[in-house]
């Protein structure tokens, strides 16, 4: 199984296996980490955003840290609105803070190793 299959099969399972979907919603960190073969740090938090045909989801940026210029941040946010208008078939991770990005990279690496694809050999 190559990595593309791994990803596609995972989303297919999430879409069509109600028991697994329920488990994922109940325990996002445990389910995702088990699937990816990744050992989570203590502070890993994952929230599932479910898409549904009748639901519009709005994700608002986090409040600026104390000391940040709120007006400037509001202007920036207003100029950086991202529409996913055909989102009936999107899977993926949204990572608000760069501090988290290594977590996702390690998760991806773990999943690649799990499928037998070791990119360090390439």
């Amino acid at each position, binding site marked *: 199984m190559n990595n593309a299959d791994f990803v596609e099969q995972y989303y*297919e399972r999430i879409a069509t296996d109600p028991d697994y979907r329920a488990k994922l919603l109940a325990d996002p960190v445990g389910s995702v980490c088990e699937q990816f073969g990744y050992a989570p740090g203590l502070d890993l938090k994952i929230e599932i955003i479910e898409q549904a045909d009748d639901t519009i989801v709005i994700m*608002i940026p986090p409040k600026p840290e104390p000391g940040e210029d*709120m007006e400037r941040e509001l202007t920036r946010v207003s100029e950086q609105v991202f529409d996913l208008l055909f989102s009936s078939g999107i899977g993926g991770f949204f990572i608000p803070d760069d501090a988290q990005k290594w977590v996702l990279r390690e998760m991806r690496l773990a999943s690649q190793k799990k499928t037998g694809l070791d990119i360090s050999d390439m």
Partner: protein
Amino acid sequence: MTEARWEETSVSGDFERELTKRVWTDDTFATQVERSPVEALRSMGVEVPAGVKVKVVVQRRDTIYFTIPPARAPHSEPATAPLNQMDLWSSKGLLIWLVPVAAKFKLLALRNAARKEGDRQ
């Protein structure tokens, strides 16, 4: 909602800016908008169109958001359109709309409601 209240919160009719501003400056609203988005949006003069649900997520810096496709019947045929996989790094810099094809025009209606409200002044 009253005109006066809207005037206080909106000068631009820019829905994304006004919504973000309310969330950042009003903790009560920030909680309400996640719990009962329709009522919260109404309080800022925006009616959610009938036939569509709205979910609002205020991003937290310590959380990764995993977006999953809609549920389908078990063992159903694969969707006709391929699933797109996309990751969004630094999503805290973005206000993101996730809008299914079926609700696309409802989004336009929702945005239009905000715009008209703003234009009335």
